[in-house]
Each structure stands twice: as C-alpha cells, then as structure tokens.
C-alpha cells in the first residue's frame, strides 16, 4: 500500500509539480543557451553580473513579496513605498547624514508596510484594496516630500551601495544574495515561515492552532515594505538622483516575477529563490532583446506570453483543493 502511494506521489510530481517547481529554471536554461549561441557578448561574467546588478532592487522586492503572497496577501504598494524611500533617503543623505539615509530607507518602508498590514487586519479589508489605496497615498507623500522635483544626490558616502564593487562583484548583488538567503531561511527554517505557509494555506486552521494570524500578516507586509525601501535606496544611490515617481509600475513587475516563479496566488505554497529566478528570467528576456536589437515592442509581449505559459503550466498540475 505505501509503495503504491509513493508511486502516486512521484507521478503527480512528474507532471505539474515539476513544471511548477523547476519550470522557470528550464526556461532560464533555454534562454541562457540560446542567447550564448546567438551572441558571444552574452556569456561573459561582466554581462551576467550586470544583469544581476540591474535586477537587484526588483529581486529584493520579489523576495519579500513572496512571503506576502504565500501568506495569502497581495501588495500593490511596493512601487510607491520604493518612491517614498527613494526621496526620503535622498533628502536625508543631503541634509542629515548619508549613512543614516541608507538605514532610513528600509525603516520607512517597514513602517509603511506595517501600516498596510495594520489596516488590512484591523479592518478586515482585502489586501488588494488596501494596498491599491495606500499606494496612491504613499506616492502622494513622495511627491510632497520633494515638491515634485528631483533631488540630485552626489555623495560618495551614499553612492557606494549602488555603484561600488568588491573585486568584480557589485555590492548591490551581494546585498541581494544576502537578502535572498535570509528570506529563504526565514521561510523554511523558522516558526515564522511555517506560520506564513499555514496562514496562506488555511487561515481558519491556523487560527484554531493558536496562531496569531493577524500578527503574521502584519509582519509579512512590514517585511515587504522594508524590502521596497531597501530597493529604493539602492536605486537612488546608483543613479545619484531621487525622484518621486521612481518605481512606478514596479509593483506589477514584482508580482509578475513571483507568479513566474510558481508561487501560488491562492497562498500557502511557494519559494523565495523561485521568485528571484522569475526576476532573472524577465531580466534575461530584456537583455536578449537588447543584444539582438529587436523592436522593444516585442519585449513586453514576449514577457507576457511567457508568464501566461508559466501560470498555465503550474495550474494544470496543481489541483490540490
């Protein structure tokens, strides 16, 4: 009986769960091979590091957003928090202290994320609606902080984060890797991670197991805000310019990456590294278009088609409920 059941499971694994688990890696592999064959400039350490470096802010957001989505939530305010953190960090770097600015960005993000979480759990409103509304509020705050103008931030003590390197490797890439590892550990090895899965998988069961589900949700949104803040600081430090409209549309790219990585939009299942892989996949498509000099109009179209295929594959294999 038990061997038969094992078969059942491995068979199921081979169809849908495989696509869900490793589909994004397969597509990345195909793209890597294809692009290396087409262009000899592609498979160089410099180009690959460059791709990673450029994707670092988005990938950091995607890591934390994965927790929110596994927990059954949704966050549309990451782009706006990115904007608030950008301009706040820029202002603090110039007027107060550049090192303080680097810490202030994530902290402000954390607070704004906590506000999201508190409104969502306190009033029992769906996170989609709350973050849609708060994203407008936060964007408004970003514009108020700067009066709508740009803040140039040319300070060496500040720009090392986005521009510096250790040896060949960009500091932003190191920050991303550290962030990813921390979030993987958080999700897979801690009681907090376990609770996030339970809250997203079956909130009622989590409540009846004595878990403070509201607290868990507030924490996921806070972490997501913190990530958006950190991403904003890295971006400002890189381009030496804080702009209130920075990060517009980034919330959708982050959601797309998480979904591309196979994290269930229904909550309860997913993994951090796969969201980062989702970001890399989108970056590779981007890079491929640049290398091949194709009409950029096809870029969004291709990304969209790949997302649809990835989601359809994942759905066909997971009829769990």
């Amino acid at each position, binding site marked *: *009986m*038990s061997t*038969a*059941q*094992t*078969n*059942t*499971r*491995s*068979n*199921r694994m081979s169809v849908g769960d495989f696509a869900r688990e490793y589909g994004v890696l397969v597509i990345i592999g195909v793209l890597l091979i294809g692009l290396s064959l087409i262009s000899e400039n592609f498979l160089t350490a410099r180009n690959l590091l460059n791709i990673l470096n450029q994707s670092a802010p988005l990938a950091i957001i995607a890591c934390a957003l994965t927790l929110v989505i596994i927990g059954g939530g949704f966050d549309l305010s990451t782009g706006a928090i990115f904007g608030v953190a950008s301009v706040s960090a820029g202002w603090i770097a110039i007027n107060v202290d550049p090192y303080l600015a680097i810490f202030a960005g994530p902290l402000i993000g954390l607070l704004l994320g906590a506000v999201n979480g508190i409104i969502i759990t306190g009033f029992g409103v769906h996170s989609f609606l709350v973050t849609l509304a708060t994203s407008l509020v936060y964007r408004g705050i970003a514009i108020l902080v700067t009066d709508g103008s740009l803040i140039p931030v040319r300070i060496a003590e500040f720009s090392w984060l986005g521009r510096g390197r250790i040896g060949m490797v960009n500091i932003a890439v190191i920050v991303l890797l550290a962030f990813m590892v921390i979030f993987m550990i958080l999700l897979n*090895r*801690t*009681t*907090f991670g*376990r*609770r996030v*899965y*339970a809250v*997203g*998988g*079956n909130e*009622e*069961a*989590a*409540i*009846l*197991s*004595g*878990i*403070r589900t509201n607290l868990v949700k507030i924490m996921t949104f806070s972490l997501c805000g913190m990530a958006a803040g950190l991403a904003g600081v890295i971006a400002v430090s890189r381009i030496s310019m804080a702009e209130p409209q920075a990060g517009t549309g980034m919330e959708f790219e982050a959601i797309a990456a998480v979904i591309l990585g196979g994290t*269930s939009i229904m*909550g*309860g*299942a997913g993994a951090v590294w796969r969201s980062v892989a989702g970001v890399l996949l989108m970056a590779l498509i981007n890079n491929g278009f640049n290398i091949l000099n194709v009409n950029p109009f096809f870029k969004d179209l291709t990304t969209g088609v790949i997302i649809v295929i990835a989601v359809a594959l994942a759905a066909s294999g997971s009829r*769990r*409920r």
Partner: protein
Amino acid sequence: MTGTDIAVRVRGVAKSFGGTRILDDITIDFKKGSVHALVGENGAGKSSVGKIVGGYYSADEGTVEVFGQPVTRFSPRDALGLGIAMIHQELQLVPELTVLENVFLGLESNTRGFLCKGDLDRFHALEETCDFGLNPDTRIADMRIAERQKVEIMRAIARDAQVIIMDEPTSSLTEDEADRLHQLIGRLKARDVTVIYVSHFLDHIIANCDRVTVMRDGKVVRTDEMAGETKQSLVDSMLGEASEIIWPKLPAAPARHIARVVQMENVATETGLRDISLQVRPGEIVGLIGLVGSGRSEVARALFGADRISEGTYSIMGVQQDSRLSVTRAVAQGIALVPEDRRKQGLVLTQVTRPNVSLASLGSIASFGFINKTRERERTQRMIEHFGIVPAMVDGEVAFYSGGNQQKVLLSKWAVEKPRLLILDEPSRGVDIGARQRIHEFIVEMAADGVAVLLISSELEEVINLSHRGYLMDDGRIFAEANCRTLTVEDALNRIFREQGSAPRNKEVTQL
C-alpha cells in the same frame, strides 16, 4: 432481467490513479426505481464508483451504460444530461447566493437570457415534494452543513434527475433529519428515481435500501437484496472476516474532588448559548449530547476562546478568564480543539504531513524561532506509527489522503504535546471502521493519560459509549447532566424530545 429494468449498468470498470488501482473489475447493476447501497471501509472504492457513475472520474477499463446507452464521455455535465446527479460529501454550492438561486443555478426562469419571475413558484412546487422547510432567501453561507445538503438534494430534483448518487448523505444530519431524508428517498423511489446511496451508517442503509453492494479494496465483494442482511453480516463482508463493533474500555472516572481543568458557570454567548454550566476534570471524558443545532459546537468554540463570552464566568485550571481570552491564549493554557470540518478548519492542505503535525506546537521544537527539523521529523514519525497513518511518510501529501488518515494527522497535531483539555468535534465523521476504532482508542488513551476530554458527536451511540458523564443539550442550553455508564441512546433521545416539547423556543431552529 431485461435491459429496461436497469438504470445504470457498470461492467468490468477499473480505475487507477498514478499506478494505484483504486477500482478493479467493478460490475454492478443499479435497478430502476431502487435504492441501492454501496458500503465498505474508507478507501474500499465506494465513493469512486459513485464518481464514475456521476461523471467525475472516467473509467480506464470497462463500460458504463445508462438506460441502455453506453457512456462515452465522462463529465458531471454529460452525466447530468443523462439524468444522473451526484450529491457530495463535500458540498458544492455557491455560498454567496441564496437557496433559491442555488437550486436553479443554470436553469433560472428567463426570457431570452433576462431573468424573470417564476423561480419562486417552481421552488414552492419542489418544496411539496421535498418538504424540507427551507427559506428560499437564506444565503448558503449562513446555513449549517445539514441545511446545505438539503439544498443540494433540491438542486438534483430540480434537474429532474433519474439517478441520484448520494455520498454520505446523513453524515451531518441528526437522526430526525436523516429520517426525513429517508422519507424523501421513499417518495423519489415511488417516482421511479434510482438512488445510489453511499454511506457508513449501516443502520440507515439496512432500514432504507433495497439492495446492497459490499466493496473491499477496490473490488465488489457481493451484491445482494437487502432483505436478510444484518449490521453484522455487512460488517463481516466489509472487513473480510468476522468482527464486532467494540467500544474501548474507559479508564476509571476521576474522583469528584479533583481540581477541574475547565469550569463554566452560567455562561451565555452571542452565538445563542445561555446558562451553560459545566466542568471537566483531568482524565475524564465528558460528552455533549444533543441534536445538530443544539449548541454543542458553540460550547466548544466558547471553551476554545473562539467566541466571546458575554455573561457568566469561565476558568481554566482555576484561573478566571476575562474578555481578552482568545484562541491563542486558550491554546497557551492547554486547550485543544479538533474541529468538525477537517479540510476547512483543521488541515493546511497545501502542506505535507510534517508541518501539519507541528502547527500547534511550533514553539516546543524551535529555539530562537529556528525549527529543529530532526526533532520535528522524529516527532512526526512517532505520530505516524502511533496512529498507523497510511501512507507512512513524514512528508506525505495530506491533501490526497483518505478521510480517516487525514483525521489521524489532525489528531496528531494535538497528540504530539499532551493538552490539558482536548475538545473533539465529530472526531470520526466520514472515516472508515478501522480508523474509527483507532480514534476511539486514542480518546481513551488520552483520558487514561490524565487529559480532560470533551466529546461531541452526532452519533449518540458514540458519545454515550465513550463518555463518563454527559451533558444533555437543547436549544443552546444544558438541560440535564447524565451518567453515561447507565444512559442509553433511547433514554437520551427521549429526554431531548421531551425537553423540546416542554421548553419555550429560544430562537428559530430546525423544525423537528
């Protein structure tokens, strides 16, 4: 026997899921206008036969004929087209819509696609056949499981189904509601409708079915006329060997003076409870005896901190609780609840066995928030062996387990760390005989180990045989206390019915 007598003819049907053969060479004739029971342990394949006839599964081998027509396409929609409707264990209604809208979903009265009046008249016409006493304007989300099931049945009848498959139809009904369902089945039979009745309740089957097919391990053991069958003869065929329904021996009841784990005095809640006074001691099994809707689950929820107590006092281990009592606080004080709906309220089906077992006791296997996975695996393995969970895999996909094994995983969650009070709401609903036996033993084990147990079950026989003491409930109140060692099911029922006859009604309840 000519072909026209047969509503559904199943010939040599086999079905496998990923290498596991769940049905093998099934051959059954379902006669027109008969009530045909499918019995067997969980996993014997009786629900799967229902799902093949209902179009939910396609047969890998063999043929299915409906009124002489071979079935080529299997889908619930095609089955409905042939006059076959299935009523599920897990009910399939739209919670946000009303009774009326659900009954006529897809067949609303309309003029060129625009809704028009007429559904209400059709509903009243249906009510004459069904006699359920349902309010057409109630939202499904506001109804209890027993009521929802009636809506499902009405939906099948509204579709003029000639064959109705009922999968565990009485599992969430009270005896009285079950009687009414069986009367309805009688009326359907008179209209030449064929009913395929899948159930664990042998008493119901013996009293109401014309024919019976006994299944074991995905095969048909035998198909016979019901006349002459007894509970024992059916159980023997199901298990393949003679066996008896035995209740485990209870440990001695604790002495009266032993400190109480929980005590409620004159408690009332917004969920309709009033004047609830009860106490449970360590090592004692206390049953809540009452019909569905009498407030049993509400008492459980109040004890567990899930519903607010508006009047009266509640103390856990002698400590008086205040309005800050929450589920988290109750769990921290050693109260555990195994809820009635294991899939919706108990298990996290997106996760495997191990995290489900650990969910309520994460703190004790973690240090500084980091989970010790080695310890977690050991603990889970111990539980798997303790309960005999199949498949015996620490990381097994609970979502695909049978009902009995899912229930055992759920019990493991509270057994890994001994609670002070264990509340069990319908612990053996929809599980097979083997698992049921194991669950009963577990309840007694816990009590012998000094845990206070509060047991809730719609099967009065189960509560009474497994409890030291019982509280008789009706209409949100405890109206009497009884010694379960001397109480009989008949006594209990009579006292409940007498109470219902005499007491003024608190709120609108199901008409009895």
